[in-house]
């Protein structure tokens, strides 16, 4: 190879490295600024030091009020539930909690009847995009890379590749400014919860329903995640309380039995699904409103004090 070719190669490589560094850091900088709900960021940056943490999907995000639990138990509490997320994602959240410096004493895990174990027909997914702005954290980066079939090794070499998942968020920040929270989705308060007032539009006159779902398609992946959550909490001396939140439809037959069977008395499982019979507590059939969330959080607090 001639000297000229070698010089050309070096010059080209240097230009690539320079642009890669600049672009990568530019994306990382603006992606984080776009997001309104920064709870995962607080967790991975070790800025959350709470006694109790709430995990689950929207039913936990809307239905469990950490402020009430804090007042009732005198223990600090924070809600880390993410709407639309499945149990696999909840396991990831637990991994991030365990990976952080400050472990909680208690985790309240919200069971969704029957989406926690049902593989299809329910709108819960692994909400990986919630993790994207935090790929600067090594653990989060590993999780995201594995989920997206990205090379972890390459993410360590190229900042642009490392942050490419945030490219659209960076553009959004530059074009729209910071994200405006959505009332039903991510309008979280300082306790991490998103409590909703009254009833959902069109659900003002809710009527108690017969079972809405059938439990006949248990997902092996979800079952494994449930077992992992139980074992990981035990391994790290975190007290796990699993709760079935109040719902405004009859519980899915056989679902509770299956949860009890899987957890084998290794954690506290409390079923509140038929606790509230009046529609004033419900935003819609599956979600509590502010009034319901406060009442439900008082019930959880009583259990925490009792145990």
């Amino acid at each position: 190879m001639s000297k000229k070719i070698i010089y050309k190669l070096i010059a080209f490589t240097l230009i690539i490295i320079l642009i890669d560094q600049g672009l990568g850091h530019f994306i990382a900088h603006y992606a984080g600024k776009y997001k309104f709900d920064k709870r995962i960021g607080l967790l991975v940056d070790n800025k959350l030091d709470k006694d109790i943490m709430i995990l689950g999907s929207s039913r936990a995000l809307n239905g469990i009020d950490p402020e009430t639990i804090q007042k009732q138990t005198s223990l600090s509490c924070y809600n880390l539930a993410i709407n639309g997320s499945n149990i696999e994602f909840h396991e990831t959240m637990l991994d991030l909690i365990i990976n952080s410096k400050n472990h909680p004493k208690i985790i309240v895990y919200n069971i969704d009847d029957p989406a926690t174990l049902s593989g299809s027909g329910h709108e819960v997914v692994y909400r990986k995009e919630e993790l994207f702005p935090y790929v600067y954290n090594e653990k989060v980066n590993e999780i995201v890379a594995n989920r997206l079939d990205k090379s972890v090794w390459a993410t360590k070499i190229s900042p642009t590749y490392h942050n490419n998942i945030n490219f659209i968020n960076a553009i959004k920040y530059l074009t729209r400014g910071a994200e405006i929270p959505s009332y039903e989705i991510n309008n979280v308060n300082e306790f991490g919860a998103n409590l909703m007032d009254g009833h959902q539009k069109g659900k003002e006159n809710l009527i108690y329903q017969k079972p809405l779902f059938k439990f006949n398609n248990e997902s092996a992946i979800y079952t494994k995640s449930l077992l992992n959550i139980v074992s990981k909490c035990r391994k790290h001396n975190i007290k796990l309380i699993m709760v079935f939140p109040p719902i405004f439809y009859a519980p899915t037959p056989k679902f509770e039995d299956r949860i009890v069977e899987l957890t084998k008395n290794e954690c506290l499982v409390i079923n509140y699904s038929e606790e509230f019979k009046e529609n004033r507590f419900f935003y819609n059939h599956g979600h509590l409103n502010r009034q319901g969330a406060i009442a439900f959080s008082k019930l959880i607090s009583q259990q925490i004090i009792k145990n």
Partner: protein
Amino acid sequence: MLLGASYYFYMVWKPIYILLIIISTLIDYYCGIKMGRLETKSQRKPYIIISIVSNLLILGAFKYFNFFSTAANDIAQLLDISYAASYLNVLLPMGISFYTFQTMSYSIDIYKGSIKPEQHLGKFALYVTFFPQLVAGPIERAKNLLSQFHFEYKYDHDRTVSGLRLILWGLFKKIVIADQLSSMVSHVFDNPAGANGFSIYFGSLLFAQQIYCDFSGYSDIAQGSARIMGIRLMDNFVFPFYATSFNNFWSRWHTSLMQWFRDYIMFPLIRKRWKWPIVFVFVFLISGLWHGAGWTFIIWGGINGLMVVYSKATEKFRNRLAIKVGLDKVPRIRHGLQIITVFNIFALPCVFFLAKSFEDSKILIKNYFVGWGDVIEKITLNVDGARQDILYLGKEFESFVLIIVLMVIFEIIQWSMSKDSIDNFFIKKARWKTWSIYIFLTFAIVIMSFIEKTPFIYFQF
């Protein structure tokens, strides 16, 4: 070493299926050697039959058994005959349609006396399994590929740069265009019942672009990788969407397969005095079946065959018409119209290519005519967020705009390339321009390579 690398490459996916390639290799090698020692075609006939039957048996068992078994069951039900359809629960071996066709072409060429058999088993095995083109072509001929394995490899800087350029361009097509369009296309065709006419039409257009970038991107990567190793593979795509007619389109699209059909099916049938329109439709029906074991693929092939026949039959008439309306005086506008027409004719029947079942294709065809009345209102007023569903096909506004911008850039670059060649497109520019394009392509690939796995579409064939 290349043979070992090729076997390893295939075994990374599913090790056991390498046995199929080895069996196919040994049979064709044996038949080739035997045929090479015989003087006349009639003496060679038993060996060509062994070669073709064994290859078709492998292909039939792994790819078509379930389709024909179900079809036999359907016919039996129609005729009120009791027939228990059996089902083979096996994974389709990757690239099976490509390597079986490649080995068959070797045997047929020896049978016809166009080539001499390869004596070196290792070199022949490499011809069957050469890793850059093993799983998705181009379907090479022994005359071109096998002969190149007899030359010693020497490093050549210009050739390496040319190969790397092709790989870069192929990756851009695959990652930056095809993979980004994939989720938009799925948004429509994974839920046929919920799709409306405009979305199906738009989704079909995007799919045409997706499959082109996916498949030609793979071919570019394969050609580029081979070129670095000193091997020149045949061109598989010659800017098909810039074709001047639908007939011309099919002489630019997946040329290695179309030339295979031309040499081994079309010409022999025409020599047997079959009428050309029947030959064309027949070949395209087989082409449909080659793409997938399902009625939807056969229909897709049939429609394309009929359109090619129409295109050929009306060529003179269309030329006269163009002169009459004065289009011959504005060749650029005429070519623009031809491009739009060819693109639409190719894209619209893709509904059958994309439908997961015959039932789905019926729903899609029915829904093709639904929702056109208020589509402009829905998109402009964004009723219930309809714009994201109908126009952005599930993407957010920013992602949608980004994809459109990248597609426009892709078309500009590709149009320039079509005027000369991919190599000359880069070579003939000032260095700063060439380097700017390299850098743009590189970072577009790096930035857009975050989506979930989207395997090459043609791997399934």
